[in-house]
């Protein structure tokens, strides 16, 4: 029973982590609190659904379309909507407020477009809903993909951020945009890249969860909320933080649902959130001071 609970908790956590990693890049490096993040997930989910329903294209293949498209979309949104805000912002806090307002508007624009094109109905389809035996526990293949993708993408981005010059530049921007530009880093370009990477991760998450989770044109905000909790728990801008916070959350929810009461999962989420913030105000992997 314990093995089952731990494994299904990790699988659930994989989904959470996958959904949160993009936001942590956007918020931590580009310093844009993207409230429309969940809507990007839903757009990708609808893309996967449409391609599956009309062309019979497997969502796994859709990933290869959605990830570059998400990157391009993020790149475009940053250029059109965020750059003017970044240019006129005097302080990081000012940018945060402006970006919250702007992306709040963007949320409704995307939601409106989705409502017009797809209506308000519950959308769900089933793909790769087959059992895979792991250590005697039956897990859903589609959810395992989410966990694997979270670990692979999270690991790759972590490696790129810590081991390459390009990644070091991105981290420099995240630590101090002003000093970064003094040493010759193109801050604008770095922030734009981080924002676009976040878009790519959101798209990957949307495609994967569409295989097993029911969604509607208006359910993006649920994903934004969950992602935000994980981002803050893990430490803003820290990809490994998002990964581990997601897994911890999934584990905690499943263990509580199994051994205590399924009614307490939400309480557990927020209880854990408060506890971690009390213990480490900047999150699990957060820097001591920002």
């Amino acid at each position, binding site marked *: 029973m314990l093995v089952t609970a731990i494994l299904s908790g990790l699988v659930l956590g994989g*989904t959470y982590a996958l959904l949160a990693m993009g936001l942590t890049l956007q918020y931590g490096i580009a310093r844009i609190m993207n409230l429309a993040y969940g809507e990007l997930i839903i757009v990708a989910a609808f893309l996967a659904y449409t391609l599956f329903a009309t062309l019979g294209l497997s969502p796994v293949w859709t990933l290869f379309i959605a990830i570059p498209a998400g990157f391009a979309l993020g790149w475009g949104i940053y250029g059109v909507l965020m750059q003017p805000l970044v240019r006129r912002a005097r302080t990081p806090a000012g940018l945060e407020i402006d970006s919250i307002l702007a992306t709040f508007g963007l949320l409704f624009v995307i939601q409106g477009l989705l409502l017009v094109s797809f209506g*308000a109905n519950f959308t769900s389809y089933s793909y790769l*809903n087959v059992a895979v035996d792991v250590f005697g526990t039956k897990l*859903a293949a589609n959810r395992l993909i989410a966990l694997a993708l979270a670990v692979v993408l999270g690991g790759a981005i972590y490696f790129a951020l810590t081991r390459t010059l390009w990644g070091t530049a991105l981290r420099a921007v995240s630590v101090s945009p002003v000093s970064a530009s003094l040493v010759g880093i193109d801050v604008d370009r770095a922030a734009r890249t981080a924002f676009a990477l976040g878009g790519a991760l959101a798209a990957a998450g949307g495609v994967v969860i569409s295989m097993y989770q*029911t969604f509607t044109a208006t359910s993006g905000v649920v994903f934004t909320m969950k992602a935000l909790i994980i981002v803050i728990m893990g430490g803003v801008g820290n990809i490994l933080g998002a990964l581990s916070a997601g897994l911890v959350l999934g584990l905690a929810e499943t263990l509580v649902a199994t051994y205590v009461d399924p*009614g307490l999962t939400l309480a557990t989420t927020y209880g854990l959130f408060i506890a971690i913030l009390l213990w480490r105000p900047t999150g699990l992997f957060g820097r001591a001071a920002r």
Partner: protein
Amino acid sequence: MISLKRRDILRSGVAAAAFVSSIGRSWAQDRKSVRIGYAISKTGPNAGGAGITTLPNYLLWAKEVQDAGGLELPDGSRLPLEVVEYDDRSSAEEVVRAVERLANEDKVDFILAPWGTGFNLAAAPLFDRYGFPQLAVSAVTDKAPQFVQRWKKSFWMLGGGHDYAKALATIIAEASKAGTLNGKVAMVSVADGFGIDLVTAARPAFQAAALEIVYDKTYPIGTSDFTPMINEAKASGADSFVAFSYPPDTFALTQQSQIADFNPKLLYLGVGTSFPVYSKNNGANATGILSLGGVDPTSEANADYRTRHEAATGIAPDYWASVITYASLQMLQEAIRRKGLDREAVAAEIASGSFETVLGETKLEDNQLRKIWWVGQWQNGKFVGVAPGDHAGASPLILPRQAWQKA
């Protein structure tokens, strides 16, 4: 410059408002149309439910009335419909505001009911105060007998939690007596309106039927992983599994039960089971699953309704409240044909008259529709009514349910 522009806009707005209200007045005097208004959740969390059960039927009905040359009045003349629609954005305050606006400013002749139990309750005092009949279809409440005392022109057409729970308890108890089931029930429910109502009714109903509830848990709304509950239910020894769930939960429970190889002999799931997409996604695996609602598969009127619904709106109706919503509009239409646009007389006619609708001969008892399906089951790609078993057109219940077929 800016202020000038604003004033212009304001002035044209006022002019437009005056224009509209003058039209409204002239209509009221020499009647060139009948105004029908409604507030419905087109956006927000309720849009999914309203968009499948209620709104398509309002659109279908309005289109059919319009195509027939308008709404027929007692003197045989026909007036075209004029529809006023508001989006309540899934907020109870917006429903109240919209109903007030429909009554006071738009001066509509009739108001169609909003979607959902809570919203119908929120709007009921206003319908009553302004004298509008309220045909509340998508509202499940045990308090309907009290409500009709308080709001004389309110009509409740989808029964109450006790009706559904009692019918289910009877089915499980009879099958246990026959030796098909072992009399043990595992039960989960969503900690929100529908789940709370139904599980509160189910606990005493199951106990009264001498069933043993071996697992009984609630989960918060928005839960996406049901693996722990399914594993516990599987280990509990019950061979009946009952979930009072919302559509996303219903779909997830179905998928995750297949993964866990969880094969209860009786599987009852909540809202969403009767959606056409459920059978589309699950194919043969839907067979045998029980839920609320159902239809008579032999009824030609119903089959014809389903075809028209799909042709007009592009989506298939659900197998529970959709057809009742449409029947409620047919009743309103017929009552207007018999009594005219006098709301008092129309309400009295709906309460006491007998109507030929897609449900067949339809008559309300104490302002409530009581002849509906409490339990339905997926059989041969249709969600058919199985209880009450003496209801005309009832299909025989099939138990035990087949095990999940591997894709």
